């Protein structure tokens, strides 16, 4: 089981109470699709994704970004049982969406950058460390049911 310090627990709750899901979610997914273009393979039915401008203006990408970010809520509420919370979603991503789990890590990196853009210097090294630790647990959990 993952051990969390009080600072880490407070930081995660604080981050998720303060971020604007409607901005950060779309920004993170957009960056992922632009910076790691192979991730576009999973969004064949999202319409125009052929360049950065198209991706940045794509409403389906924006909506999906919000959805994905809200997908982290269950981990925030359940920090002591993150792996269990993602059992079903992990199976889904493996068996239905066939997403290479390394992509979760790429999206997590983009999420850190999206928040850094919003928060500036308020995104301190300690906060970044706690956030990335949290994301790495989620990433691991999402990959846990692959077979």
């Amino acid at each position, binding site marked *: 089981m993952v051990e969390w310090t009080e600072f880490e627990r407070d930081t995660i709750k604080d981050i998720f109470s303060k971020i604007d899901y409607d901005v950060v979610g779309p920004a993170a997914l957009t960056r992922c699709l632009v910076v790691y273009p192979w991730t576009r393979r999973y969004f064949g039915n999202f319409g125009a994704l052929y360049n950065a401008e198209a991706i940045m203006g794509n409403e389906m990408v924006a909506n999906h970004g919000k959805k994905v970010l809200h997908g982290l809520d269950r981990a925030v509420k359940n920090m002591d049982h993150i792996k269990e919370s993602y059992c079903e979603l992990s199976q889904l991503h493996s068996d239905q969406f066939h997403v290479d789990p390394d992509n979760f890590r790429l999206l997590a990196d983009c999420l850190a950058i999206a928040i850094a853009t919003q928060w500036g210097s308020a*995104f301190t090294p300690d906060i970044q460390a706690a956030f990335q630790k949290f994301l790495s647990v989620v990433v691991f959990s999402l990959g846990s049911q692959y077979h």
Partner: protein
Amino acid sequence: MSLSSKQKATVKDFFSKMSTRSDDIGAEALSRLVAVYPQTKSYFSHWKDASPGSAPVRKHGITIMGGVYDAVGKIDDLKGGLLSLSELHAFMLRVDPVNFKLLAHCMLVCMSMIFPEEFTPQVHVAVDKFLAQLALALAEKYR
């Protein structure tokens, strides 16, 4: 995943905009490396204090950023231009190349913190590719 000429121009342009804050970014990036990836402190056991924000960490971050800027000037031939630095990292420092990626990520975080408007997704991809090419050039002499 080599850089197009447009991306090279994007990198040069962004690094030039960043130049007034390059020391801060270098110092912050290395601080974040040791904070977010504590295992990287293993390379700095000879320092009295390798904690985030410490003087040796900040100073070394500035040195590294200087090297990155130097590489921007050699963007058309990174392998050739970084030969001696590669030999240093391969034979003397022996830093596991996986750490180049981790530091690159921390640099990107700092750039996005300090230049949120300029660090657009298009700039992000160009800089990420550049740092990846830089890492490859640094690892050239490893084996």
